[in-house]
Every structure is written in structure tokens, then in C-alpha cells.
């Protein structure tokens, strides 16, 4: 084979190319996920207004509507906590907070992912850089976790201002629980979104037949055991119900139902970890075929 070299190679010429590669690859190997998160936040700026409206506007609408309307109508205590009777607004607030985190994933872990693989193909661009597929999915999840935390913290401040938290000290853990609920719902959804190659309206179906029923049948507006047993299973499978029950325990000072907090927590963790493992596997499979 003929080996002829014409001109000078680009970049520093004295350096051995293999050594240069080994040095240059070290930083992305560690921080690739962070660069992906940076990019994701920068892209979120394009719809920053929607994020703020969803983060503050939506809770305000719910709290005003329920607090001034429904809660005034249901003028009896709906539960008993360690700190005494619980008002309807105090009952609903943890559920609303958790559902706001889950709602974020309905956008970030669906169409955004589909777009990254198929429409705008951004993930393929990242994939050609030193960043690994596992870091791509890691960075996306990290960026969304931060968005969920900021949203639920804003939500928490609002519900405290509306007097909807019995114990604001332990209740302050609600944003963490809400975010965990968001991951328990969102990471399996992310894995599913990463597996879709053809948009046939799957996400609209998830919205209609998964998200909306979960919102209504997860003991959000009334205790789950109010419903007939044959409908309660929806709640048992629902990350929203588990996150809400933990949130209520934190607010009231004691668990509102028969299930211990540890069980709710374990179920959320199992869902989130399973989703995470599947999502990683799907990103690797898709980008490294």
C-alpha cells in the first residue's frame, strides 16, 4: 500500500496522535452527561415561558379553583393526621405537587426524545462526539430532574402560602418525593419513547389512556379507598398515588392510609430504576446499532 503524506496534518503536529486522543478523551468520559444537560437547558430556553407558566400559573389556577371553590364547598375535615384533622386543600395539595412533576415528563420524555432521534436528530450529533449513549440519556434525565425540582419547589412555596401544608418542615421534602414520582412515571416512559421509530400518535394515547386516568384514579381528589376495589388497582400501580401518599405523610405527620411510607418509597424506586435500566439499554441499542 502506498503511503504518501502531503502537506502538514491539522492541529499540533509534534504530538503523537494516539497520545493526543487518549488525553482529549479523558474529560468527556467523565463529564459527557453534563455537556448534554447544558445543551438541554439551553434548548429549554426556547420554551422558557411555557415552563414558567406551567410551574407557577398551573398551580395557581388549581389552588385558586380548589382552594376557593371546592375546598370551601367541602367544609369538613377529610382525614386525621398526627397533628389533627386535615382540610380538603391540605389533602389535595401533595397530589397536585406530585402530578406537576409527572406532567413535565409527558413532554420532556416523549416528543422531545422522539425529536432527538428522528425529527431533529440531535442525539446523532451528540453520538458522533466523544459522549457515550449512556451519558446522553443521563444528561437528558439530569436536566429534567433539575426542571422537576425547580417546579416542585415553586409549587411547594405556593401551597405553603395557601396554607395547604400541615407541617411545612417535614413537608419541605415533598419536592424530592414529587421528583421521585416523576422519575418513577417518566423513566419507563422515556424507555418507551426511545424505542419508537414511527410516530403513530402513541404519545397522545399515553396522555389519554395512561396519564389522565392516573390523575383521576390515584386518590388525587378523594382517598383511593373511596373507590370500589376493582378500580383501586389503578392507584396501586400509579406512581402518582405512591408519591402523593408519601407527600401526605410528610404534610400530616403520619401516613394517611394503611400502606407504610417505606412500601410506597420502595415501589417508586423499583419503577424508576427499572425505567432507567431500560432507557439506557434502548439508547445504546438505538445509537450503536
Amino acid at each position, binding site marked *: 500500500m502506498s503511503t504518501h503524506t502531503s502537506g502538514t496534518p491539522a492541529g499540533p503536529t509534534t504530538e503523537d496522535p494516539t497520545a493526543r486522543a487518549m488525553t482529549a478523551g479523558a474529560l468527556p468520559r467523565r463529564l459527557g452527561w453534563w455537556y448534554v444537560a447544558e445543551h438541554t437547558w439551553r434548548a429549554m430556553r426556547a420554551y422558557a415561558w411555557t415552563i414558567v407558566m406551567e410551574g407557577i400559573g398551573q398551580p395557581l389556577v388549581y389552588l385558586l379553583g380548589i382552594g376557593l371553590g371546592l375546598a370551601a364547598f367541602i367544609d369538613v375535615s377529610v382525614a386525621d393526621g398526627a397533628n389533627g384533622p386535615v382540610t380538603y386543600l391540605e389533602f389535595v395539595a401533595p397530589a397536585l405537587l406530585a402530578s406537576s412533576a409527572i406532567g413535565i415528563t409527558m413532554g420532556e420524555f416523549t416528543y422531545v426524545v422522539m425529536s432527538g432521534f428522528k425529527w431533529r436528530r440531535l442525539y446523532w450529533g451528540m453520538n458522533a462526539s466523544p459522549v457515550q449513549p449512556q451519558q446522553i440519556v443521563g444528561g437528558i434525565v439530569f436536566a429534567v430532574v433539575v426542571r422537576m425540582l425547580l417546579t416542585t419547589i415553586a409549587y411547594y412555596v405556593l401551597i405553603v402560602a395557601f396554607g395547604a401544608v400541615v407541617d411545612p418542615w417535614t413537608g419541605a421534602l415533598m419536592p424530592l418525593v414529587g421528583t421521585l414520582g416523576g422519575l418513577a412515571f417518566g423513566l419507563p416512559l422515556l424507555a418507551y419513547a426511545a424505542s419508537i421509530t414511527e410516530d403513530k400518535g402513541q404519545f397522545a394515547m399515553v396522555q389519554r389512556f395512561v396519564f389522565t386516568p392516573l390523575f383521576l384514579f390515584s386518590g388525587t381528589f378523594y382517598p383511593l379507598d373511596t373507590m370500589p376495589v376493582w378500580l383501586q388497582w389503578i392507584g396501586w400501580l400509579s406512581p402518582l398515588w405512591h408519591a402523593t401518599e408519601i407527600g401526605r405523610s410528610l404534610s400530616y405527620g403520619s401516613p394517611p392510609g394503611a400502606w407504610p411510607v417505606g412500601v410506597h418509597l420502595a415501589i417508586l424506586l423499583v419503577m424508576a430504576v427499572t425505567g432507567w435500566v431500560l432507557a439506557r439499554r434502548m439508547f445504546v441499542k438505538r*445509537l450503536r446499532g
Partner: protein
Amino acid sequence: MTPVIAARGLTKTFGDLTAVDGIDFEVPAGESFGLLGPNGAGKSTTMRMIGAVSSRSAGDLRVLGLDPDAHGPEIRSQLGVVPQEDNLDPELKVRENLIVYGRYFGIPRATCASRADELLTFAQLEDKARNKVDDLSGGMKRRLTIARALINEPRILMLDEPTTGLDPQARHVLWDRLFRLKERGTTLVLTTHYMDEAEQLCDRLVVVDHGRIMAEGSPSALIRQYASREVAELRFGSDRNAEAAARLEGMAERIEVLPDRVLLYTDDGEALLERVTDLGLHPTTSLVRRSSLEDVFLRLTGRSLIE
């Protein structure tokens, strides 16, 4: 000097399909190397393996002396990749696209910013720095993609069908930019199914078909080896081409009958045309041209490159 890319028996299978079937090649530093072949020949799959985003099924591959299976991030840190389909971020401005991409290589933000400005000048896009990507024409988007691929000062620039879908003028602007990179000594690896592109940009190329290398050499050497100096293209009308070709038997080094025309390979096309007329044959149109890689491909595979 060790080659920047060395492939031996490189193979990629997808289930029953063998996309790349045991190919051998080496690319020395500074060379402009082309993979020429029709769609589905295995060019893009080969590029993905070199780009350390697709692992090989068999054989050996070294890029910058490293094994892509073990050192993907390290290899990719030294590559610039221009994909077949643009994947710029339309949510970001033109200049931001470069900066964000530079960060993926662990390059400090300030360095990314100064390199972005230089590259926008190189890509003749300095006026568009604050525009949205969607405002750019197809040719400008390609140039931006090339600028983005250079943000890490790559050792090897890989281009997959760089000018497919561009109008002739935009292609020439792009070729000019790539030629400058080549002059600066950047190693180029490109796939194309355009003959003129391969002739313009490649020092050396391999002709690929069905995942195999059919021939290898510089464009001019391949033409010398597999075609005559000139070609006479004669058209007698679709149903009369075969009949006419039968009468032309023995008049040229080689005769190729295509559905729409007859190709006669010879060293002197004009002289041949005269002999054809002397024979009493009157083609509806005739054209004498220099042989090209298209003819090489036809000879090697019996098929036209763009069908």
C-alpha cells in the same frame, strides 16, 4: 509512519445481511480518501465503524492506532463528522450551534467561542452568526455542519455524501472549502456516489459494491486501468441501440450497450465517430468525452452508479 486508519477483513453483519464483507484498506495521515459506490454498498456502515459508533462483526480496525471497541470516546475526540442528514439544533442560533457542540469535546467555553468565530469565517457564514439555523439555505447548513465538525480541530474529517441534495453552485462552494482543508493537511474520508466529487476531492479511492472493494487507486489511475482515454456516446433510438452495437463490434476496445445509448471505449473518439459514419450508421446524437469514474464503475460492476 503508521496509517491513521487501518482496516483488515473489516466486516459488519445485520442478521442475515452482510453490509460490509471483509474489506482491507489503509489511510495515511493527510490523505483524502474516498469510498465510492451506489446506495446500499456499505459505505455508511463503514463510516460508522470508523467513527466508533458501530462495532464491527469481524476483522480488525484501528483508528489513530486505537481499537474503536475499547477507545470510542478517545477516537471520536479526534474526528469531525459530517453526517448525511444535517442534525443541527434549530432551537439555537448559528454560532451557538458551534459552541454547544464544542462543549461535547470538553473544550472550555471561551475556546469554543473564539474557534466558532474563526470557523464561521471559514464557512463564509460570519454574517449569519446570530441567525436561526432554519433561516439558512441547504448549502449554508452543510457549511455550518462542516464548521461544527471542525470545532475540535480533528485529525480526520469524515464526510458522508457531503453534497447530496445541493444545487451545483452550492456544491462548488463546498468543494472549495473542503479543498482548502485538504491543502492544510486534514485527513479527509468521504463517501460519495458522485463521480465528479470523487475526482475533485480524492487522492485515492476504493470502489465499493455489495460490501466489497472492487478496485482501489487514484481517480486517474483507476480510469487508466479500467477505461480508455475517451468514450464516444452514441444514441440510435432506444429500440435500435442493440442492433447498431452489433454492427459496431470490433471497432472499439470495449462496447457497452445501455438502454438509452451505446458507449464505445477508445483512445481517439473523433476518429472513431468518422469510422462509424463511414460504415453508414447515423446516430441521432453523438458525443465524445473523456473517460470518468462512472465508466470505471460500469466496467467493474456492469451497472450505472446513479440509476
